[in-house]
């Protein structure tokens, strides 16, 4: 029984012909979970998933995603299903409502298999800051899978589910997708509702799909996109079928490569792999130019100021009073706060709350925060300028492939450098995708494709073309 390795269209036909039932897919997913030992789930939804799958047998197969198993990052609120954000402070939190995107996937009758492991409150890029222990990279269990959407990426890479939802504040979908050989997209800011996403940095957070291939990625984006009256920052922009440009000619596309993305900071093998793709695109008629985009080099300090400033405020609500971790050891209200938060948050989260609070304090707000907003605007403007001449921007997703577990935990700053190339996209609110384009020492290399606002369809157009041309085998060989 290898139903889950089939492509979505084939599965859909078999479901329609009743050759297979949703419960077969669900059972297979749980069998695979039991066989693997990657720690990619925090909470499994087995009973409910099987129940739902059996109920679906009475319903018509009315869409391509009908009955398909999906894994959900654990910072996305799911009604009646424990949602922890991988933190001790929420480890018994059972929500009373569904995030808007969860309602949307439920409407399509997709089946939630479980809640995936992640860096605590999405703060990290290795999966190691989780209260529930780190997730292993299925390509090599001694390596990090990337983060913060570590469990979602690993779940798809290990072919447990064909679909997963992640969130991306500075690269948290794209970086683990790159490290695990997957397609991961961060949509345009506002494309997907944030209602029910446990906030890290509100002006940067965006949920998006992690999948085995480009087409399936676009299918899932179709489901979760759209204006939501519960999220004032969500866009009223029309949602088109994001698969509409897949398979279309790409020879008229104008593509920019920022010099910054091909500098010495990037591993040579990674650069070479990207150069090979560029050569292939040129051969097929694309115009590819090297350009400069101003202010890219400020990505990390910008992130530290804006993301951590917002985070320090967003995480203030976890105070031990209304929900989450309850402690009995306090004499007054200040001790209640202090003891709850000391016990409830991990070190990385505490570090980021402290930095963020410091940055917003008194005069610092002007020195750092408001200055950062100006630089952010300037960086955004230089991206906008670039998109007046080009359709897409490409480069590597990361400076290198996945690295050993434990290497960056001792250096708080180093882990931010994983997001060197992904953060600018969040700052500008643009859509971007990571696509596997090769290997270094048998580990997948991700290519970054950045699009103009609300032009996810164009990203998929180029990505699917490259995917088809390269035709890489991204299945992990048994015994690895």
């Amino acid at each position, binding site marked *: 029984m290898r139903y889950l390795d089939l492509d979505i269209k084939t599965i859909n036909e078999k479901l329609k012909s009743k050759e297979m039932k949703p419960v077969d897919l669900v059972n297979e997913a749980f069998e695979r979970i039991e066989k693997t030992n990657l720690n990619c789930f925090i909470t499994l939804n087995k009973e409910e998933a099987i129940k739902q799958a059996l109920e679906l047998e009475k319903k018509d197969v009315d869409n391509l995603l009908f009955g398909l198993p999906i894994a959900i990052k654990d910072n*996305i*609120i799911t009604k009646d299903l424990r*949602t922890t*954000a991988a933190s001790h402070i*929420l480890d018994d*939190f059972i*929500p*009373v*409502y569904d*995030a808007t995107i969860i309602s949307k996937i439920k409407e399509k009758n997709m089946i939630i298999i479980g809640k995936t492991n992640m860096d605590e409150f999405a703060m990290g890029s290795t999966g190691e800051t989780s209260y529930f222990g780190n997730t292993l990279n299925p390509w090599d269990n001694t390596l990090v899978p990337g983060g913060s959407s570590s469990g979602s990426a690993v779940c798809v890479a290990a072919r447990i589910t064909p679909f997963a939802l992640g969130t991306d504040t500075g690269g948290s979908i794209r970086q683990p997708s790159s490290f695990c050989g997957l397609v991961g997209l961060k949509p345009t800011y506002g494309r997907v509702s*944030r*209602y*029910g*996403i*446990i*906030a890290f*940095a*509100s*002006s940067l957070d965006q949920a998006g799909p992690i999948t085995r291939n480009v087409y399936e990625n676009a299918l899932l984006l179709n489901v979760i996109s759209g204006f939501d*009256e*519960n*999220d*004032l*920052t969500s866009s009223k922009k029309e949602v088109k079928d994001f698969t509409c440009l897949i398979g279309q000619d790409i020879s008229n596309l104008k593509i920019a490569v920022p010099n910054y993305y091909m500098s010495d900071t990037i591993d040579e093998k990674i650069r070479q792999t990207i150069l090979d793709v560029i050569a292939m695109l040129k051969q097929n008629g694309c115009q590819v130019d090297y350009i400069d985009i101003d202010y890219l080099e400020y990505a990390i300090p910008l992130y530290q100021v804006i993301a951590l*400033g*917002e985070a*320090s*405020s967003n*995480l*203030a*609500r*976890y*105070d031990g*009073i*209304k*929900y989450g971790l309850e402690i009995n050891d306090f004499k007054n*209200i200040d001790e209640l*706060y202090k003891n709850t938060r000391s016990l409830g948050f991990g070190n990385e989260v505490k570090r980021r709350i402290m930095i963020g*609070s410091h940055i*917003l*304090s*008194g005069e610092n*707000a002007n020195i750092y*925060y408001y200055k950062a*907003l100006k630089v952010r605007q300037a960086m955004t403007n230089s991206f906008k300028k670039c998109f007046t001449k080009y359709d897409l921007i490409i480069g590597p997703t990361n400076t290198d492939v996945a690295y050993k577990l434990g290497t960056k935990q001792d250096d708080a700053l180093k882990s931010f450098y994983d997001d060197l190339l992904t953060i600018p996209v969040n700052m500008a609110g643009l859509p971007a995708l990571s696509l596997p384009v090769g290997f270094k020492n048998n580990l997948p290399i991700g290519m970054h494709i950045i699009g103009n606002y609300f032009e996810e369809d164009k990203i998929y157009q180029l990505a699917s073309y490259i995917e088809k041309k390269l035709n890489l085998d991204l299945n992990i060989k048994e015994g690895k």
Partner: protein
Amino acid sequence: MKPTIGIEVHVELKSMAKVFSLSKNSFNDEENSNINVIDLGYPGTLPKLNKKVIDMALKACFALNFKINRLMHFDRKNYFYPDLPKGYQITQQDTPIGYDGYLEIADKKIYLERMHIEEDTCKSLHTTDTLLNFNRAGVPLIEIVTKPCINSSEEAVQYLEKLRETLLYLGISDVKIEEGSMRCDVNVSVSDNEKLGTKCEVKNIGSISNVGVAIDYEIKRQEELIKKGEKIVEQTRRFDDKTKTTVLMRYKETGNDYRYFPEPDIPYVYIDDNWLEQVKNDMPILTDELKNKYINLGINNNNIKTIIANKDICNFFESVILNVNPNIAANLLTGDVLSYLNKNFIKLEESKLNKDNFIKLVELLDKKVISSKQAKEVINVLLETGKDPLNIVKENKMEQISDDNIVLDIVRKVINNNLDSVKDFKEGKDRAIKYLMGQVMKESKGQINPSLANETLISELNKFDVNKL
């Protein structure tokens, strides 16, 4: 020594829904019944924005002569307190909806620094435990801050009364200071030189008159300290209603740090010309305009004051003003109607009085069909029963006799029956006319129109031939 006072007023707006969620805005319902996941600050929730609240704030901006920040945003004010579910309050720091306004009191303009929109916290109830009522969390507030331009408790009280009246007439708040829908904090400083002194803030003042009391106490306290050569330390004090004094709560911590930053969950709001125009068209008449109108109608000052101070009465008055003699209507409303309502502790809308009946009554009085003494009786019946005043008058046989012929008949009858008094009259004894008039009233059972009767009596007496006596 010169006192300087600045006042911060928080006013609850009476919108249907809360400012950042769809929960009902009604604090007084059962505890924690008007709440949802947004009000509780649940993980993943985001604020909505109630446009009606902005409409109401814009009305206040117009009435208080504020300039308007056409492109405004919200900010987060971060601090920890159990009544603050998100760990921050959504407010407006950088771009208050209104700035540089003023309100005129008797002989002075009170300059207003700013007005902004924010959400209320939940209500703590301290018993053996602390209980939280989230009905109040997210109730819309506007905060109105004066410049330090008030120099006496009298000015402060006048300002607050005028502000309360204005907001009440805008229909955007109940402005009940006793119930907490209007809250005043005052900053008082005293200086014996040109520079401003060190200010002390006084909170928790439960009525406008107590604001005056608190300010006077605080001025005296600070003056005495200065005379003794002591330094005033910046602090927050609370008004104690029992002792009518102010009591130290805490010294201001150096640099209270709220870590303000723009609220990323609410996009900037642009108030365009259309929006302003719509709100402008929806503005009610305010009290200054009403006062001028009433003065022009010749209504006396006391009545004007009473009408304005009672918005229900004023609304009623406005609804009939085109159909009645306004002076008679004003007298009735500020006299008999108001005293009936006060005596019975009810609101006008709870009485049986309606517009049509009131108009009829004023007409009866205006045309002298009934006397003002009779009107008193009729209005009380009207307030109790809502009966048609014409029927009340008929049932009680109250109609005045104003028919010239009937009056003449009565007068002649009285004259013929009292020839002694007529003689006295002719001999110049003034008392005789009073006696005869009394007889006329008696004969008519008190229903004769007194001035007409008087007139007729004198003319008949003068015409009376002395020789007939």
